[in-house]
């Protein structure tokens, strides 16, 4: 028994020493996100950096400043492919536009791990993402719960805000929300506005919605900038206790709004894990490890009641993220 333990310890010691010696120190993974301008993608980078540190490899954090700039992302991916890194981790801003460049990278022998938003091809290692439709469904469930708690009933008018036209992940969220809301026949969607991923536009749109429908009981904002804008409108009009606001993602402003009761529920993804696992997967794939085509990173619901709990802490602030074992149960 003692001998076995000793061998195990020696084996463990070996791997640790191996890592220190820098087996992967020559490995370089390019992490390409949709926009370098949001906290969300910053968190993806945080996770990727942690993985790089843990694995002793180097990464490059790349992306266009704006999610609107599909062409620039294509260019970044093409340039990355030309430089032949060990692996590429990429979030596709547009499924169609990124399909061919992802294909090309794979054909060039570079393992590509797609995170967050899919590309319209199957030539990649795996797709590591939030199930956005599930996220949208959870938003509808939270909204119904909030409306029930507020009004005691389950009837009323609801509106939803899309941050940007043509983004697959947003479309999926909206679809999940709209479909799930149908299971509450008393709740009807009266408005849908599409913004330009800018908080001040979301603010104006939300103000006008609240004016046009004084009896509105719920708003769903499908990303953080929409959440910032809608939250500002609801708080300006003093409707925090009347309108149930459910938003996606976590900005500092959104977290403040949850604490002050303006936002009732945040649907939170796990971008840290997308970045962290993305780098691990890309490296493993470069060494022949096979992955399932799709891995769900899960969504959580943050409310005023659980916002200070330790398991939400890491989702809201990547600096507090504690990597803990995955035991197979979701």
């Amino acid at each position, binding site marked *: 028994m003692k001998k076995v333990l000793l061998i195990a310890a020696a084996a463990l010691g070996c791997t640790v020493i191996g890592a220190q010696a820098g087996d992967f120190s020559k490995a370089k993974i390019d992490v390409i996100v949709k926009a370098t*301008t949001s906290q969300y993608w*910053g968190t993806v980078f945080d996770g990727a950096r942690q993985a790089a540190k843990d694995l002793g490899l180097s990464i490059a954090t790349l992306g266009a400043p704006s999610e609107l700039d599909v062409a620039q992302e294509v260019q970044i991916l093409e340039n990355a492919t030309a430089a032949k890194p060990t692996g590429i981790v990429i979030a596709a801003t547009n499924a169609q536009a990124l399909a061919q460049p992802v294909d090309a990278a794979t054909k060039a022998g570079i393992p590509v791990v797609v995170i967050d938003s899919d590309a319209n091809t199957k030539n990649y290692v795996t797709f590591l993402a939030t199930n956005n439709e599930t996220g949208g469904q959870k938003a509808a469930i939270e909204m119904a719960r909030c409306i029930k708690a507020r009004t005691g009933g389950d009837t009323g008018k609801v509106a939803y805000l899309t941050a940007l036209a043509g983004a697959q992940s947003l479309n999926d969220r909206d679809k999940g929300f709209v479909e799930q809301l149908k299971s509450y026949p008393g709740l009807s969607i009266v*408005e849908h506005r599409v913004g330009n991923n800018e908080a001040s536009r979301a603010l*104006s749109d939300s103000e*006008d919605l609240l*004016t*046009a429908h004084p009896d509105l009981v719920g708003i769903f904002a499908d990303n953080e900038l929409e959440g910032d804008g809608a939250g*500002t409108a609801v708080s300006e009009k003093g409707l925090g206790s009347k309108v149930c606001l459910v938003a996606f993602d976590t900005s*500092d402003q959104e977290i403040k709004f949850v604490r002050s009761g303006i936002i009732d529920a945040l649907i939170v993804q796990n971008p840290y894990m997308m970045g962290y696992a993305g780098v691990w997967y890309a490296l493993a794939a470069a060494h022949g490890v096979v992955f399932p085509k799709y891995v769900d990173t899960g969504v959580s619901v943050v409310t005023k009641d659980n916002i200070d709990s330790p398991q939400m802490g890491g989702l809201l602030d990547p600096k507090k993220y504690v990597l803990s074992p995955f035991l197979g149960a979701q």
Partner: protein
Amino acid sequence: MGEGTLSKAQEPAVRVSMFEGLRHRLPLETYVLALTVLVWILLAVFSQYFWTTGNITDILRQVSIDAILAFGSLFPIVLAGIDLSVGSVAGLAGVIFSMLIADAGQGILVALVVTVVAGLIIGMVNGWASERLGIPPFIVTLAGLQGYRGLALLLSGGLTIAGMPPGLQKFALSSVLHVPSLFLLMLAFGLAAHFLLAYTRTGRYMYAIGSNIESARRVGIRVTLVVIISYALASLYATISGLLLVARLSMGAPTAATGSELAAIAAAVVGGASLFGGRGTILGCFIGALLFTTIGNGANLLGVNSFWQMVIEGLLIAFVVYFDNLQKRRQAGLG
């Protein structure tokens, strides 16, 4: 070739007859104001919520920041120049201001002064480069559009900056005698700009340079100085609107005011400014901005599809400019 020009010259005379009723040429602002009033009446008829205190207050707040940006962009337009960097400057100003407060722990006053000085310097560089280095202002400020946005993203690490003092947002929401403070501020900046353009020598020089830069030079106008002043003013007004955006949202966002340079220029043009210079008024800018804000508000109130809204705005710009050109050609024809 000669025939082609001839038939083109005859064209307006035929078209004009359609507008026989509008014999006397009124400033374009008048028509755009009439159109805006018409849109207001239609919205008041079709939406019971349009003509309510709350909604009018919202519109006044919404138009304020856009109008200030439009006022600023009018100065270079009058000079037959253009400033494409105003949206990026607004974003950068917001980032500098909010970072000075949230990260550097500075007071509002210090942050305000530093940001305004930064804005003025940017504008002076724009003016100097387009006048002295002979680079067309379109290119200089296109570089600025990209560069200053990049700087805003770089400084902030691409993230929004929260942690503004609550007083700032309180101010943005406050009203004096039921008129939003933001709107009053916009009026003050509008009046100042109007006074400068209409009643000072510098203002008249701007129109003179825009009409004919060579003759302006010959009569001894210090062209470089006037150009630098007007681009500095464009940047100053952009900086102010960036600061107000921060106050309004209680956060600095490096992406704030993205694309708003085009909205500002559209407001000026719809309000009667000519991109060929020498023409344009602050009142026109205000009416133009008000029309666009009204359309946005109306589209939201009536639940008009967001994409149709963009199409309508595009058609509006095309129609107003076409109508204006028609009038000018007719006037030239009547000589």
